[in-house]
């Protein structure tokens, strides 16, 4: 009985040091190391300014938005290759709708939502109820969406609309106090609508994953789908909704991208799905499912975007080095994951039941 007393307490420290967060810590640590490296190497060129940091968000918000949905899909043990094409399609809808058909952008956005979420739900349904592998199903979705893009137009269409201009131009500048006056920091650093959208989607994703049954069912399905079924969890419904949610994220990412480049092009965001998956994986999400955190994905996005930033600051390196560095990063993280997973398996062998007999 005596022993039972200590289980009542669980210190904050042991909660933070929980081994299940190891991957997230690795991502954060690596981001800090690379940031520190950048600060040492290119500090004099302005790498440490706030602007460099906020630009990581501004320039990659659309990846981040999509990565939130992708993280959920990956946690279920699935994959979604259609996100880039769906985002591109959203851009086409907005560009064609506003510039050619003269529609209000909100109508285009609502339409995109219906199409994107609908496609997601449909793919989820096919994956679960027809038992088609996610890879194939979403590959089909990708070709479908990309095909429709080209059907709409094979030329880039500029987006010209007052609301789009206002949204993409809107920004909150960072200010600081200088000689008793609030002035903009120099060089100017700001966040825009896309960054806010990213943060909002990220928070929603976090809330869904950690605070709702829907989110916990996602983890359970990724852990062992058969068990989840036998535990009486709504496996089919959850999976369909996850792909639907990811469809929504793709559309939001498409909106953010449209605001970022202010045009729609049928070949935009080609291969973006792989970048998005990369963000999630280097953020600690297991491709085999069951493990992943939004905070990890956030740092995954930052980690992936800091590399091109470094290359820009260097100025001499070809941008292809970015791809190579990203590849190495991905490899590194997959290796870390392997090690973490196999060592937690070894733990199991060691842990013999601590049984108190009365």
């Amino acid at each position: 009985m005596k022993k039972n007393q200590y289980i009542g307490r669980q210190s904050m420290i042991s909660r933070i040091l929980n081994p299940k967060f190891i991957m997230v810590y690795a991502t954060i640590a690596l981001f800090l190391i690379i940031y520190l490296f950048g600060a040492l190497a290119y500090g004099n060129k302005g790498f440490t300014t706030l602007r460099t940091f906020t630009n990581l968000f501004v320039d990659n918000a659309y990846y981040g938005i999509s990565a939130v949905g992708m993280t959920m899909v990956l946690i279920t043990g699935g994959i979604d290759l259609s996100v880039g094409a769906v985002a591109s399609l959203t851009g086409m809808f907005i560009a064609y709708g506003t510039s050619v058909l003269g529609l209000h952008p909100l109508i285009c956005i609502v339409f995109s939502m219906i199409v994107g979420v609908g496609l997601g739900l449909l793919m989820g349904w096919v994956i679960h109820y027809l038992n088609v592998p996610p890879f194939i199903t979403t590959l089909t979705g990708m070709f479908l969406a990309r095909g429709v893009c080209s059907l709409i137009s094979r030329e880039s269409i500029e987006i010209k609309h007052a609301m789009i201009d206002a949204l993409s131009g809107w920004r909150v500048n960072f200010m600081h106090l200088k000689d008793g006056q609030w002035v903009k920091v120099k060089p100017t650093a700001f966040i825009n609508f896309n960054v806010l959208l990213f943060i909002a989607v990220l928070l929603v994703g976090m809330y869904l994953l950690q605070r709702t049954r829907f989110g916990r069912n996602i983890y359970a399905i990724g852990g062992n789908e058969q068990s989840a079924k036998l535990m009486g969890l709504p496996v089919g419904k959850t999976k369909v909704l996850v792909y639907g949610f990811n469809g929504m994220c793709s559309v939001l990412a498409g909106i953010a991208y449209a605001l970022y480049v202010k045009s729609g092009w049928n070949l935009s965001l080609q291969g973006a799905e792989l970048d998005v998956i990369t963000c999630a994986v280097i953020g600690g999400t297991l491709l085999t499912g069951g493990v992943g955190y939004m905070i990890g994905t956030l740092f995954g996005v930052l980690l992936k975007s800091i590399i091109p930033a470094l290359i820009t600051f260097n100025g001499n390196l070809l941008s292809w080095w970015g791809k190579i560095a990203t590849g190495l990063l991905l490899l590194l993280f997959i290796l870390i994951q392997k090690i973490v997973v196999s060592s937690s398996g070894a733990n199991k062998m060691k842990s013999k039941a601590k049984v108190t007999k009365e």
Partner: protein
Amino acid sequence: MPENNLLEMKQIEILFPGVKALDKVDFSLRAGEIHSLLGENGAGKSTLIKCLTGVHRMDTGTITLQGKEIHPQSPQHAMELGISTVYQEVNLCPNLTVAENIFVGRQPMRHGQIDWRTITKRAKELMARFHLNIDVSRPLSFYSTAIQQMVAIARAVDIKAKILILDEPTSSLDDNEVQLLFGVMRELKAEGMGIIFITHFLDQVFAISDRLTILRNGHLVGSFDISEISKVELVTQMIGKDMNTIFNLRRADVAPDAPFMLTASHIGAPGQVNDISITLKKGELIGFAGLLGSGRTETAELLFGATRMTSGQMELDGKQTDIKKPYDALMRGMAFCPEDRKRDGIIGDLSIRENISLAVQARRGFLHPLSLKEQNRLADKYIEALGIATPDAEKKIGELSGGNQQKVILARWMATDPKVLILDEPTRGIDIGAKAEIQRLMLEMCGNGVSVIFISSELDEIIRCSNRIIVMRDREKVAELDGETCTQEKILSIIAEGAATAGGEAQ
């Protein structure tokens, strides 16, 4: 039948394509009762349970729970009706914490959000009730199978189940853990829960149950109070034959002048086993006895080349041989049927035919593929010879019962026409009838001139079959006994001599 039955299943019939899986079976369960469900593999135990949990739909019959007729549609539906099942393989999510595994899908909510604090608190209380002092915020995969099993039961119990079905929960537990589980079962029983207990361990049946029901080939044999029936009767009823006729086996006849098939002198490998010498005659069966970890399996792996030997010499069929890897052993006429059937033996998604053909194919090399016709001939031959219960050779091996899987593995190696066959725990986890069958097959092979090495934790089967018995202890060969004159006590005392200091591992 008494009136206070919690559950009543009447005239249950289930038809599978071509087979009547259950034929007018009655089953009843009282509140506050532990009721064992017994039968051989394929007798219909799982089918009956799956019918109760809504996995299979019954063709005729009625199920009544507390006087009301029910029609379980799915495991989820059964759970809502108050029927919870804990399976042999733990069906929980390894990535979630212990606490979450108990509550996932029915988490307590607060302000529309999951109330993690209450979950942790209640999980702790539940585990404490099971006398388990563990950190419930650790992932399930961190803990041993026994604890995982307890967590599964905790979840089932907390759902406010009226009926708890335990489907072979003890097969991976050690003695202490079994006692712990029994304690919990008794507490639940005292609270008025009805428990259906399925196991192959007859001792456990007698230790814990109040009543038992026996099935055979989809038919009901009968239900008995535990005091009404003896173990011998029980076994007789289960297999439908007298136990003695079943085990009426004769040791292999080995001619005194039979040639030596395998001679190993002073073989060993660092960290594995030391200085083992073995001789094996043509058509002889020798048994390896000893505790788990005593070096039985290690010796077998050394002989087969799965571990590289660093000292000693081996002669096979009178010729000096140097076996470096299993392939060498296979090419020289040896076969090895490893211990863990699920992990090292079967390939679950392949058909029986493919599983049988594997070793023959490996021996021929991939440039000389077996034609489908040859494969079919092999499969059909062994399905018939070994009495593998299956509609056809194309069934996935993973869908067979344990005993039948073991027969397929045996067939795989028999098909290679081995001179020396090593069987590591071929009878573990299968029922008595199938055990007897496997033993009969081994001895039959000896009769055909195959030399067999038989490893088993069950001394009675070792003694029953072996010409000679090699006793292992602490990774060394400590005795070689004659099978005819050997007794269990003798082997036990040899093992115990050293085990007294080693602490003695539970079998």
